[in-house]
């Protein structure tokens, strides 16, 4: 493999062939100029270290890997044999790992981005399959590059090396076995960044239990309050509200409330995202009520306003428009009224 890193090295090849670990150094000068590359999360110890040392991380990875034989990684439980290359609802190509991008991201939640960015890794395919998907190229059509477990481990290490504050795994659900395997490899080579599990929220309790002690930051969506809506807009996922509520509670049980450390960065905890949709399709106020009632008042809640009709949304008149300022403000006000004190509000309609 190292032979590939011969004379024809260019940074462009790197993006294609992360497997050449030596190439990663080429990036460092770019990010290194600003003093990146030092260990920055001093004082923080990720939960997974202990599990790695005891060998349990490896066992858990194997446990999840075996589930793919009759895949039940997500609530769809379609039971296909991914180890034999079969595709389930998520359309992930068997047990192959396909990744569309990885890089330092400066547009995620402020306490995740800090100065040096959130180390995002975007996984292709998705089990929820929403009609208004904003990344349908990767989630529905599955555009990306096939990678090995070692590649994934190298990506994590690379993101740590250039100074990112965390490893942000986007749409990880159907690749959780791969992630755990790669993590085990990466930890061995020195990974110490917290993992961000950036998910639709529709997660099985059984799987979340396996992730207990591995993930430090859970970043779930709560997309819908009513199952008729989740069923209609997310390909028959009528169990979404029910399962997601339970999942969020379990996530909170594991990592607690997200609180920034002295440096302003969040290293552990639960961050909830909610996208306000037109015509109250999401049931936003009900969701806020549930959060306020069930979780601590200082739970980090990001209320998002950027809904815009995309992908197949034009096939559904009730969601083929943008949300109004009033629709958004109403949800924010409701959340404030309910006493939610840690709201991340986007500040659209900025100038008066």
């Amino acid at each position: 493999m190292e032979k590939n890193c011969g004379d024809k090295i260019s940074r462009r090849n790197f993006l294609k062939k992360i497997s050449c670990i030596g190439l990663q150094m080429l990036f460092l000068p770019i990010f290194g100029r600003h003093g990146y590359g030092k260990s920055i999360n001093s004082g923080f110890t990720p939960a997974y270290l202990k599990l790695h040392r005891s060998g349990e991380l490896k066992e858990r990875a194997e446990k999840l890997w075996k589930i793919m034989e009759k895949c039940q990684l997500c609530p769809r439980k379609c039971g296909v044999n991914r180890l034999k290359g079969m595709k389930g609802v998520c359309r992930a190509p068997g047990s192959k790992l396909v990744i569309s991008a990885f890089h330092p991201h400066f547009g995620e939640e402020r306490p995740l981005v800090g100065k040096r960015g959130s180390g995002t890794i975007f996984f292709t395919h998705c089990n929820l399959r929403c009609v208004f998907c904003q990344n349908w190229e990767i989630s529905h059509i599955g555009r990306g590059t096939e990678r090995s477990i070692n590649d994934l481990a190298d990506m994590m290490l690379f993101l740590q090396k250039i100074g990112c504050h965390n490893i942000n795994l986007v749409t990880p659900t159907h690749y959780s076995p791969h992630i755990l395997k790669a993590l085990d490899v990466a930890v061995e080579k020195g990974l110490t960044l917290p993992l961000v599990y950036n998910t639709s929220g529709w997660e099985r309790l059984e799987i979340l239990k396996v992730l207990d002690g591995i993930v430090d930051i859970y970043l779930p969506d709560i997309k819908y309050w009513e199952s008729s809506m989740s069923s209609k807009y997310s390909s028959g996922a009528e169990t979404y509200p029910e399962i997601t509520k339970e999942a969020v509670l379990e996530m909170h049980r594991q990592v607690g409330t997200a609180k920034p450390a002295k440096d302003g960065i969040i290293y552990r905890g639960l961050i909830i995202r909610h996208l306000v949709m037109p015509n109250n399709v999401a049931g936003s106020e009900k969701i806020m009520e549930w959060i306020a009632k069930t979780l601590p008042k200082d739970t980090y809640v990001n209320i998002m306003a950027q809904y815009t009709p995309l992908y197949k949304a034009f096939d559904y008149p009730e969601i083929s428009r943008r949300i109004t300022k009033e629709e958004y403000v109403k949800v924010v006000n409701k959340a404030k009224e309910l006493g939610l004190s840690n709201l991340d509000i986007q500040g659209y309609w900025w100038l008066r």
Partner: protein
Amino acid sequence: MTFGIIKNSLRLAILIMGFSGLIAQMLLLRELLIVFSGNELSIGIIFANWVILEAFGCFFFGKRAEKSKNKFETFIALNIIFSISLILAIFFTRILKELLGFSIGENIGFLQMLYSSFIILLPTSISHGALFPLSCKLYSDFSHDKASSIGKVYIYETIGTILGGIVWTYFLITYFHSFQIAFFLVILILLINIILIIIFWREFRLKKITTVITLTILIVSLYLTISAERIHQFSISAQWKGLNVVHYQNSLYGNISVVENEGQYIFFSDGIPELITPIPDIGFVEKFVHIPLFTHPQPQKLFILSGGAGGVINEILKHPSVKEIDYAELDPLFLEIIKKFPTPLTEYELNHKNVKVKYIDGRLFLKMTENRYDIILVGVFNPSDLQTNRLFTKEFFALAKKRLNNSGILVIGLPGSLRYFNDELKNLNSCIFNTLKSEFSYIRVFPAEGTNLFLASDSDEIIHFDSSKLLIRLNERGIHVNIPIARHIEEVLHPGWKEWFTMFFEGGTEKINSDFTPIGVFYSVSHWNSVFNPEIAKVFQLLEKMNLQMFIVLFIILIFLFFLLPIKKTKLYRLGIPLCIMTTGFAGMIFDLMLIFAFQSIYGYVFSWIGLLVTFFMVGVSFGAFFTNSLLSRIKNLLSVFIKIDLTIISFSLLMPVLFIMLHPHIDSSVEFIFLKILFLILSFISGSLVGAQFPIANMIYLEKSPSLSETAGILYSSDLIGGWISGVLGGIVLLPVLGLLNTAIVVVLLKLLSLIIIVYPTIAINVSERR
């Protein structure tokens, strides 16, 4: 019945055949273009398919129909098939996205364009193609001078085509929608059929059934014409899957449709959503407007080229220093339609005292105005076709720079993604970056999901702008805010993005996008293509690497092979003529597309002029064919004339792009614009004539060596078509956008030289050996 009436009725029928051929071609071209998101690169594909299908009809069905005992019945049957299939083709084109499994607002890939347009055009083009030989036969049956009858049919068909082009451009497209036009055409065809039935009553064997069928269809068509509006509406609602379409109109530039949804209007341009009123994509609009306006020390005079209404102007007006905003769209009709569906936001924006709305193509306005601006905002964020690419070329950036004050800023956007990178996206961004860099000293990129924002300026202010500067300016200008810095603004100003973009760019292309080398469109289209058709994405990646040097090397290798290989060169002579005709067919289609693309790059509204350009080209072909045909008997050395025409084609293909490149920078007034437009028609005519002129001579030369007339015509005609088809598909999608006008012309020259050498060499060799 007198002979005159008989002949006149046939002439009329043939004239209408030419007329309806052009109108049908234009109708379907326009409908397909709308469904293909207005992507002009698909014109080549559509033409190629139309031509090849027409030829297929001419050869296979036409020849058979010629031998049929019921010639008149067949003629009428073909007319009826043509009519019905035309109506159906329009309908199926409108619901094509649904049929192919695409959603409203999605783009169609090239592969799908290729086969779907083939299937849709199939019955219409084939039946129209079959009519030609049959008309020739009918005409010669009733003519004293049988030999010249093909020529006469050709003339009447050409007259019909000319009429069609003029009526289409100046009458039909302005006042009627496609179904109305199609039904007019159908009625016209059926009426002439009735006339034929009456006049040639005795010739018909199946009198009753033909009459009954024709009359029935005529009556049905008359009825349907009255309800054409309803069919039109029905097809639109099928196309838009029940959305409330409140407006559907073809402008000179393309199709504009408006969908209403709970008080919000979504404006679609060629099926792609462009604007939603009155709720802006606020997160984006605030970035797009406030970042440059706070970056500039004192923005007073602004120009918005497209995308001003529906939020942008409203945000700009929040800056107290702004005194004047000039605003134009690429399609002026867009503005009128926004006004037609007023919302408080757009009314406020368009009627504000500081806003001057210009009802003229934005680029043309910028060219003609003498104003100088502090900021120019370009509100089109993808050079997805030639029309929009006009705002991303070196020429445009140079023009923008001329119209900017010293510290002025040009703001553009390009497709960007934080989730999915591919080489196509990288090349698109880096190509436009290079193009900007060739005109401006400083460029700052703000990467973001969906759209990367580019600021270009000769002042380094844009490089040093950050959150702290923003806070100072907010304070200075006394603007009230809801929170100190909105998250989405702070986010894009994060210093980490600067390095991010450097990383993203590494290894991207170094090519530059220009009016006559619209490589930007190619990258945009291949990005789209790589998402939908990854299986052919690799092909596109290879095509991107293509350059003129490769063609030159290939040319030299082929020449060497030709001279060095121990083959009897005289044998190749037989191959040379069809090969030459093939390269001429290739050149012809390239000329046609070159004119269409150049027109679009300069004016942006080829949608309305394509009919005329094609007509002039086709008339040129007929004229050329006639001209040489009439001289045939007087030509002593056929081969020498043939070679001379070939050399003329070669010189012409060099001359045309040079002419465009020379004239392009000097058009600054509307008078010159009109002059250039006429030049386009003249050039169309000349290209056609050159292509047409060669054919009869080739026919004669080839006949000397070949006994069969029909075999000769068949071989030569198919060579011509194969050449045309290849260049329609390749030239449109690859050659012209990647190599540009001039280099494509050089490729044509190389190809022509190659085929010429194959013909000339044996002659010289024979002469030399004879002399010895």
